[in-house]
């Protein structure tokens, strides 16, 4: 699943470390989310979208052909 986390985060001038701390996850998790290696749980996806004040579909882009694929590509 593609997402706009990096773009939105950079727009708002938030560093990865700070964003990770605010979301209660590790910096590596944010990095993996931004590079598309890891798909978040619905809970984390909501938390991120809510933090940015956006709807979940404005942050995460659902791709039908990706359905059922592994959460972690590595």
């Amino acid at each position, binding site marked *: 699943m593609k997402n706009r986390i990096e773009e939105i985060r950079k727009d708002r001038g938030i560093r990865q470390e700070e964003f990770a701390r605010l979301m*209660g*996850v590790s910096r*590596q998790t944010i990095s993996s989310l931004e590079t598309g290696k890891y798909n978040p749980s619905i809970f984390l996806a909501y938390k991120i979208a809510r933090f940015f004040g956006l709807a979940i579909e404005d942050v995460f882009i659902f791709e039908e052909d990706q359905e059922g694929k592994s959460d*972690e590509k590595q």
Partner: protein
Amino acid sequence: MRNSNRRLISSIVEILVGGALFVCSLTGVLKDQYWGSCGVTLMTIGAIFLVRQIRYRSDADYKEKLDIREGDERNRYIAMKAWAWAGYLFVITAGVGTIAFKIAQKNTQSLMCGFAVSLIILLYWICYMVLQKKE
């Protein structure tokens, strides 16, 4: 960290039990030296966890780092996946071992490997059934 108090108590218990085993082995109450080694191992593990617990309670940065590491969903996912991979690799290794030992005419070892494969598959099946009802 979840169950911080419980972990602190269990590490103290580990040190005490380990110490008791070591002393019993040293004084000859327990004849087998195996228990002495077990005691030292248990004491070492207990001491490591005790130091960790003390640091967790006194160092705010370390507490935050550990809480994030424990609560991080990707970490939990990777840990689960690592267990799954370890399980697959174990089954494959034991399966290969079953055949290899049979070819080498080491029937006992072959039987043990085969038994290990059967046991892990049985455990997987039971866990799957339990989780299917639970989740």
